[in-house]
């Protein structure tokens, strides 16, 4: 662990899922190393944007809540993503905004009000030594995080940050609006979709899906119509982010950042990275629809998101 530039936050209490995340680990997937990184990379990006950090700057991904931090140094911090009932010294904090903190104050996250994962940005990013090019915490692989060995935050940890002063921005209105009641997640159909039964493909895009409680950073299972594929016993191959794989029980699993790097289940295609970020905020039981898109359309939407962060650079 490196010496923190500024000791900024002390962890008083932590649930199992407060993780340091950035964009993820790239260039090593051929060695079996997973991507990792913020599941809702859009919210991490906005949290960083609020402080004037680059969108992929290391921040804290707080899933579910159950986290209490003691402020060690005065600064401006920012929150985006889920509303986890955050409070500063017991007073509710506005979500999707930056706020001033002073040494001695307590920043606490209770439980999800809306969404699942909140992102906390700090000046210049959380100070942690990158492992294989990234600080992304992957517990299963023992990589990243504060100690470099994939450990989630625990009581007694001290987080430092790398920067000093920072911007004081307000999020564009359309970003802070509540997400639509039923999420529409864009999916790029893959070549293997040709091996699915016609009525299964129809059902995939026209029926409602529900998020199962079997959901974590590796993947999210969806409940809905049973999908049938003529392929079975495929040879394992590389799996992209958002791949929608369909095992024999016909219930799809969307593979997210901490997925295994290769696998052998037939796939409908892959959610776009924007859709993956949206999915990461859906709680078990929430409903969604899948909408087909093309790689070119998906790319345009993706680049548009990045352009917003760089608009006033």
């Amino acid at each position: 662990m490196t010496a923190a530039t500024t000791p900024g936050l002390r962890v008083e209490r932590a649930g199992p899922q407060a993780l340091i995340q950035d964009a993820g680990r790239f260039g090593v997937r051929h060695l079996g190393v997973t991507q990792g990184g913020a599941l809702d990379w859009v919210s991490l990006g906005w949290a960083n944007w609020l402080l004037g950090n680059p969108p992929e700057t290391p921040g804290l991904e707080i899933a579910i809540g159950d986290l209490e931090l003691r402020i060690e140094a005065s600064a401006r911090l920012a929150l985006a993503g889920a509303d986890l009932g955050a409070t500063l010294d017991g007073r509710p904090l506005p979500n999707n905004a930056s706020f001033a903190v002073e040494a001695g104050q307590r920043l606490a996250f209770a439980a999800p009000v809306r969404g699942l994962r909140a992102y906390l940005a700090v000046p210049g990013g959380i100070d942690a030594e990158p492992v294989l090019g990234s600080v992304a915490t992957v517990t299963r692989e023992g990589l990243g995080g504060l100690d470099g060995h994939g450990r989630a935050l625990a009581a007694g940890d001290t987080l430092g940050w790398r920067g000093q002063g920072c911007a004081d921005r307000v999020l564009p209105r359309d970003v802070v609006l509540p997400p639509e009641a039923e999420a529409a997640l864009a999916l790029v159909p893959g070549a293997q979709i040709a091996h699915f039964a016609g009525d299964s493909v129809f059902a995939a895009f026209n029926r409602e899906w529900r998020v199962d409680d079997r959901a974590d950073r590796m993947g999210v299972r969806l409940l809905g119509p049973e999908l049938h594929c003529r392929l079975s016993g495929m040879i394992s191959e590389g799996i992209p982010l958002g791949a929608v794989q369909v095992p024999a029980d016909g219930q799809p699993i969307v593979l997210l950042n901490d997925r295994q790097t290769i696998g052998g289940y037939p796939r409908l295609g892959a959610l776009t990275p924007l859709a993956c970020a949206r999915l990461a905020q859906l709680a078990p039981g929430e409903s969604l629809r899948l909408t087909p898109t093309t790689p070119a359309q998906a790319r345009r939407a993706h680049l548009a998101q990045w352009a917003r962060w760089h608009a006033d650079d």
Partner: protein
Amino acid sequence: MTPRLETVGMDSLIVRLFETIDEANMPWLAAADSALREAFGSALIDLVPSYTTLLVHYDVVALTPGEARERIRTALTDLAPASAEQGRRHVIPVWYDESVGPELPRIAERLGTSVADVVERHCARDYGVFALGFAPGYGFMGLVEATLATPRLKTPRQKVAAGSVGIADRQTAIYPLRSPGGWNLLGRTAVTLFDRDREGYSLLRPGDRVRFEAIDRETFIAQGGDTTPLEEREERP
């Protein structure tokens, strides 16, 4: 050699070279790997070779989907297999013992032979590394001789110790770190498969060759091996 290109996501394409698992695929996959790395340069985010395919994950800021396809087509025109001697050969010492390889006696029993004979058969040939995956540095190797082929456990173990050597069907592998796993365990090695301080991190690379060598308990301990038995009771409460 006509590679097939398949869309698999916004920024990813699968290059399909073969339809079946075969050690003869490896020189072709190695050649495609080099050609694609060169063709994409900094526009390549990740390239994941597997038994019959390569997954190309490219940077959408740098390339449109059409441009990515074109680069792949150009790169793979007139592809020639890489030299079969390119991969490295590793000799991996393994302590074969029931306490750390609980399926060893079961396989011997099924074959109507001794544990020593099963060990001898597992050590009798070089295995090719087909692909890395499942965990950092986890190499899928094969093929073990047909008589040793054993299907995966019906219920995977919650915890398999680091260094465990296993068999699934006609493939064999070593668990680089403690993880869940459903392979049939024969023994354990003290060799470190994945090391963040090692050049290239992973001991095994696709196309490498691996030979297992049986060692006794004392040698295993001298090499730093962990003799803690696999405690099945604890894993299945």
